């Protein structure tokens, strides 16, 4: 599952634009991930300019 580290995220939306599943949503100043849509492809993890996204091992 994608974990959003809110203390790092700068809510820029870069990750939203590359998510192939439309699983990310930027609600103004915070980011949300829809666990049902997310396929754990990690594209968003790669793109973040700050490194605010991680994948946790538990499914």
């Amino acid at each position, binding site marked *: 599952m994608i974990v959003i580290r809110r203390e790092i995220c700068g809510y*820029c939306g*870069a990750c939203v634009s590359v998510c192939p599943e*439309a699983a990310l*949503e930027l609600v103004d100043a915070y980011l949300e991930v829809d666990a049902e849509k997310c396929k754990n492809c990690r594209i968003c993890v790669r793109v973040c*300019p700050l490194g605010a996204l991680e994948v946790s091992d538990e499914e």
Partner: protein
Amino acid sequence: MKSEYDILIIGGGPGGALAAKTAAEAGLSACIVEKRPAIGVPVRCAEGIGEDLIGEFFDEVDPKWISAKIERAKLIAPDGSSFYLDPAMAGNEVGYVLDRKFFDRDLIWQAVDAGAECYVRTRAVDAIVEDGVVKGAIIEYAGKQQEVRAKIVIAADGVESKFSRYCGIDTTVPLRELETCAQYLMTDIDIEPGVTVFYVGRDVAPEGYIWIFPKGERSANVGIGISGTQSKDGKRAKDYLDKYVQENFPEGKTIELIIGGVSVCQPLECTVGDGLIIVGDAARLSDPITGGGIYNAMYTGKLAAEVAVECIGKEDCSKKALMIYDETWRGSRMGKALDRNYQIKEIFVKLEDKQLNAILNSVNNLAMKEFSTLSLIKELIKLNPKILKDLAGVKKYFD
């Protein structure tokens, strides 16, 4: 907020603002929804724009929009050698570094003065689609949701571009074509105030560039964009930026951190739907070489509203009727530049530093009649017919 407008605009950036202003001036009811609590902040931009481009929309450029006037540009090759690009006529301004906090806000101000409505901290959370036709949006404001219907919805929601997705259009940017960016607004640094500086090379900014855009005598936007595929732990945009800043401006003071994504892919295959027009970054219209998209958003925002006014007048807001928008921008100077610059970018991102050095070292300072990436590329081709034989495929764009 009413439950119905002629035109509903999602997003209050430059694209949305120009659309709303144009629609309101034509006498239509227009409403902008912007999810942020304030227009223009946080800034997601290096704020550079060509002088001729901004002049297209305003008789006068308000001094408070301008942080710095730009007279020349400097390009730095991977090996550190550099050259200047100058306008052919000395003393001419070629561009501005804007203050988008003021600029974006004033654009919205002009739109509401013209009669448009604007709601901030108000977000489109879904589209209303009936029989494949976009009829409006579900708008969330202060914890409540309401339906807002419109004859045409203009999606001006920037790089995230979720509204078109709600309508069933895939706007995903390929990872390799999303430039992931970090920028500091720095002060107390030694810069050349009238000069924008660009560094290229795999070590400094893989598949992207570092920029210094002056904001004053001793302050500047110092930033970087790299390709999404080059971004990884320890080598993210901010890591490259920190390294550059430590080496070049160790004493500088950082007063703002700006991050964001810019698409450098091709535009969406089609930028209209039944009842829907997509503009600016949401349509993937930023320039594939420079990442610049302020002008493109304003131009398409204005055009979208002009087409919307026309189609609403004729009571036909079908995709077929709105196609004239798509066709017009593709045939415009901007559309042609996007097409050509995409092809050129595809060649340049593959060059090794050795090749880049050879190309850039062939250039002495250049005086350019027209200050644009196109004139620069033309000069580079003239000087490097061999190295750039790959560019043969794009030769047609230069005739």
